[in-house]
């Protein structure tokens, strides 16, 4: 490990039971345990969290910005894929 710079970790917080973990940001830590502690201190100070995931940023494979057209444009004219043609009951949350 580089002694000058700790590796970068991506932080995911689940705020309540029933919701999924959401990406909230990133931070530096020497190991996974420290990353969880740092995430607790940096991202859950105001009762935001019920659960924390930490993922080494290097483990994330991202789509290339150059492929944006190729990946996403074909969905443009397929409005029927959106659930907008029927009414959702009010009780259904987080759609």
């Amino acid at each position, binding site marked *: 490990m580089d002694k000058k710079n700790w590796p970068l970790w991506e932080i995911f917080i689940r705020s309540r039971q029933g919701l999924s973990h959401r990406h909230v940001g990133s931070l*530096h*830590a020497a190991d996974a345990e420290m990353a969880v502690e*740092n995430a607790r*201190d*940096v991202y859950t*100070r105001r009762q935001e969290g019920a659960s924390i995931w930490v993922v080494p940023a290097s483990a994330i494979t991202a789509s290339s910005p150059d492929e944006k057209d190729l990946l996403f444009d074909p969905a443009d004219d397929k409005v029927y894929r959106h659930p907008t043609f029927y009414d959702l009951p009010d009780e259904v949350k987080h759609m």
Partner: protein
Amino acid sequence: MTRMDARFDYLLRLGDDALILGQQLGLWTGHGPVLEEDIALTNIGLDQIGQARAWLTLAGRAENADRDEDKLAYFRVQADFRNALLCERPNGHFGDTIVRQFLFDAYAVGLHEGLCRSTDDEIAAIARKSAKESAYHLRHSRAWMVRLGDGTEESHAKVQQSLNDLLPYVGDLFHSDACTQAAASEGWGVDPAGLREGWNTRLEDMLADSGLTRPETVPEQVGGREGRHTEQLSYLLAEMQVLPRTYPDAQW
């Protein structure tokens, strides 16, 4: 010593430990070794200040002389402070601060656990809240003890020196006298001497994981509980108290 005196004195000791430690940790704000640790130390410092406020408010009520938490924190002189000498040791380098914190946290978890069983509902309530905080503080400081002790040659040597330097100052934490005997026998406080065994186990456990060692004999210094402090506390109080003493009625 009357019952009221013992209660006031005992609560001051709890409050002053937290207050002085919290003030010192606050000095790390903006100076932490990395941003994340800067925030962690500040959070721990704020927990300590929160505990100090609760204990000092209770102390003020026990004294019944119209002194609230602020009066007690900002308008007492050095000799009236009852914090353990360990808490007033200077921040030094990061390793010094971590060792001081570990030695205190390993004591505080046992203290708060014991105080949860206090016959006094208010003391037990503050202890229950503090117990969760101190358990986290210990996890944090212990993890750093292991990382630094089991880290590089340089970090090991530095933190071993910090440990050797600070161990003599834990005496106050386990010091029993008329005040603590009254607290323990009446059931609303705990006997500090009884906390040493648990503290010792937590220390030995950390030493085993970190590769650090404790000196064979450690002469222990006491005095904080009687108001006999080191020079360091006067500088600390001067900085902490200057604003309220200059503008006594200042409001946020």
